[in-house]
């Protein structure tokens, strides 16, 4: 079986303007959503308490809300998740109660009102810890960007490095845009997924760039555009198959992974889908416009001398 039967190189670069325009529009839309709606930050970042409670019967949400009112915790959100028997309770940080007291108070009240209550999970984060996690997350994101730029600049060329990081930051912003648009909860696990996507997506650009470099060595008499087109066309099969495989795994997590892994796999899915697009159709045009050429690549890679002609 072979999915891709390509006779000629597809002139991807001639669509460069179109594809980057599309990217730009999605990118701007994502930024708009981010600035208007903002991220729905989880307790990991905002501080507060999250409690997962389960019952052997259908949970009575209204009754739980009443219980919250009786213990004077008015700004609580109570909602079902997963099944009708599972309930998620979110409590903001209180000035008058420590987080330890808060969760204790709630679980006591819930168990008193219904013996069947089972506290499955409690996550309480103080405001100070939340701020630190937020700062650390941002720092990690920054560090990854610089690390990747440095590595690519060393291995390839600064133009490739910049192109790759632009393409990938574009992915990250779009993932964040989706989370802002649908108000999915953004927590530490999602952040981990985003950083993983960043590493993974750069992969993609690297594979294409590798081919571009190789082509520059082999195809001496053709234009930069043709070189890039050929590189993309020849790696396309691999790009699609690989992403299909990774996405299969991520789908498996989406179906079997439960609540905790749900948003994690969502972030990965968006990252993978846009990763294909951006690493090929954004990173390459950007690299081209930045002026990659045979000359600025061949200097650091003089090893293979035999130049093979490849019939395009």
């Amino acid at each position, binding site marked *: 079986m072979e999915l891709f039967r390509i006779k000629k190189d597809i002139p991807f670069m001639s669509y460069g303007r179109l594809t980057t325009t599309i990217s730009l529009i999605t990118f701007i839309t994502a930024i708009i959503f981010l600035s208007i709606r903002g991220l729905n930050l989880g307790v990991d970042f905002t501080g507060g308490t999250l409690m997962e409670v389960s019952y052997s019967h259908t949970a009575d949400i209204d009754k739980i809300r009443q219980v919250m009112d009786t213990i004077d915790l008015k700004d609580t959100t109570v909602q079902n998740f997963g099944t009708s028997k599972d309930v998620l309770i979110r409590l903001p940080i209180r000035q008058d109660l420590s987080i330890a007291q808060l969760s204790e108070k709630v679980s006591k009240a819930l168990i008193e009102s219904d013996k069947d209550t*089972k506290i499955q999970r*409690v996550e309480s984060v103080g405001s100070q810890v939340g701020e630190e996690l937020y700062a650390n997350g941002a720092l990690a994101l920054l560090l990854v960007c610089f690390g990747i730029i440095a590595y690519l600049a060393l291995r390839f060329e600064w133009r490739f490095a910049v192109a790759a990081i632009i393409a990938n930051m574009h992915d990250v912003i779009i993932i964040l845009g989706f989370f802002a648009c649908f108000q999915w909860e953004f927590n530490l696990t999602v952040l*981990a997924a985003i950083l993983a996507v960043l590493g993974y997506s750069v992969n993609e650009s690297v594979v294409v760039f590798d081919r571009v470099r190789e082509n520059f060595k082999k195809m001496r008499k053709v234009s930069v555009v043709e070189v890039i087109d050929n590189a993309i066309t020849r790696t396309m099969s691999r790009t699609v*198959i690989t992403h299909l*495989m990774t996405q*299969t*795994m991520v789908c*498996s997590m989406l179906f079997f992974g439960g609540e*905790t892994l749900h948003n994690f796999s969502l972030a990965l899915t968006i990252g993978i889908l846009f990763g294909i697009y951006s690493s090929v159709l954004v990173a390459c045009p950007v690299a081209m416009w930045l002026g990659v050429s045979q000359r600025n690549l061949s200097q650091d890679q003089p090893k293979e001398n035999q130049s093979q002609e490849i019939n395009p």
Partner: protein
Amino acid sequence: MNQYPKWKYGLVLIAIFIGLIYSIPNFFGESPAVQIMPTKTSDKLDVSILGKIESTLKEANLPFDGIVQEPNGIKVKFANPDSQVKAKDILQNSLGPDYVIALNLISKSPVWLTKIGAIPMYLGLDLRGGVHFLLQVDMKAASEKAAESYLNDFRMTLRKERISYIGASRLNEIVRLQFDSQEELEKAKKIIKVNYPDLMVNESSSGKDKALDIGMSEMGKKKIQEFALKQNLQTLHNRINELGVAEPIIQQQGLDRIVVQLPGVQDTAKAKEILGRTATLEIRLVDEDKTDIATLESAQKGNAPFGDDLFKDRDGRSILVKKNVLLTGERITDAGPGVDQQSGRSVVHVTLDGRGSNIFKQVTRENVGKRLAILLIEKGQTEVVTAPVIQQEIGGGRVQISGMNSPQEATDISLLLRAGALAAPMQIIEERTVGPSMGEENIKRGVHSTLWGFVAISVMMMIYYMVFGGVSIFALAVNLLLLVALLSILQATLTLPGLAAIALALGMAIDANVLINERIREELRNGNTPQASIHAGYDRAFDTILDSNVTTLIAGLALFMFGTGPIKGFAVVHVLGILTSMFSAILVSRALVNIFYGYRRKIDKLSIGQIYKPNQD
């Protein structure tokens, strides 16, 4: 050209073999066990206790599956949770308070595996259930407390040296001593400087007020804070031991934080109470001149005599105690229950450290016949635990506290004294609790995600790349095996995000094989011979695989550096997964392909799926 030297096949075989051995323990499951540990963390486990455990269980007619002795305690294996719980109660009764009996799980894997260090992966709290606390130590309070203790020391020293002072007080971290003459001030200054070289002594006299301000240097404060943290860690260790938790983790994090993880603990309320118990112990003198009913009554109305505090003892009787604190719980090095040989009543034996012994000796010498009050201060409430009469001067730092109502009380109080007080109060700033059923559910979720994802990828790869797809899947399976083995060997904490990282690692590792297979197809398409295509395919793909893995590695390392808790778990697996995938995708799959094709003289066709050649159309 497609043959490996023998050592490379050997390397692959050895890696697979080691991978198998070290990942096997994960598949045996666990059986219920009880763990017996000495109550005092400093105590070594007595070997003779093994015989006692065995005979106790035999007497009670409780069958057990085996006893293992480990550095952190003795574990007895049981067939079912029922006998486990029964055994816990029986052993607790027969072994007494010197041992803590905790419920635990023990791997069912054969003993020889355990002996060579092959043990299952270490599961994080979200997979086994339990509580995670992050505690913030109040360092300001630690400094203030240190200043308070200096204040008491100065009072004692000045009295001993017969230097008269008119006031001694503390403002935040500064101790102020007031004198009515410059002469006395100078004397005091000299003595303090000699006895406490670390402290900064400043004169702050204004007009008639002659005063000394004594503060701690930054270094001194830092030392006190380090000490406070260490003391709190030790205290937590002791208290958690008291809870009977099988494998607690109590670690310093940063300069002023402590992480406490209690696997399997469900009663979070009790855990919180015990962790947060800011009980401190004080020894003071009872004011023997003020025991008449009239003074006590007026004290109850809020008019305690100058220099005294009014407290209640355990029977609810009022008692006036001098304000001057002679000793605090910090000076206790050990405490244990016992029986007084003359009266036959329960007592607590307390051992004091060097400085405490000296103070205690001096105090008891000067106050024979008077009562000594032992105060327990908890949540702002002070209670007189006992107020025994000093019979004689007590030297050597061994103190017997009488007046216990029962052996149980003696045990409780000695536990409390031994566990010690916190050097500084702590606050819980992060709490994560996962119920045990939720933990099991999470394991199931993670395993199912990986399993079904793996199956789906296998089917797709084999349909698309035929034999080479099969080779890729074999390499992927080896990758999984090595990853699990590596995680087991390193005993890195496996969390649910970690399980997700395993799945993701597999999903991403297949990339290397796809790259190789596509390259081989391309070489074939260009008209190269099968052997040459295999060679060139692996060779050319290598650079790309390396580059792409390094960038992923960078992301993984950043996650590891800045991540906490579950994210760190994700990062560890992510990074290890990249390393194992490099090995398996390149070396293992190549070895297999070599065995398959490398030794054939003539190959017409590689089974790598259909290859489309545009020229033939």
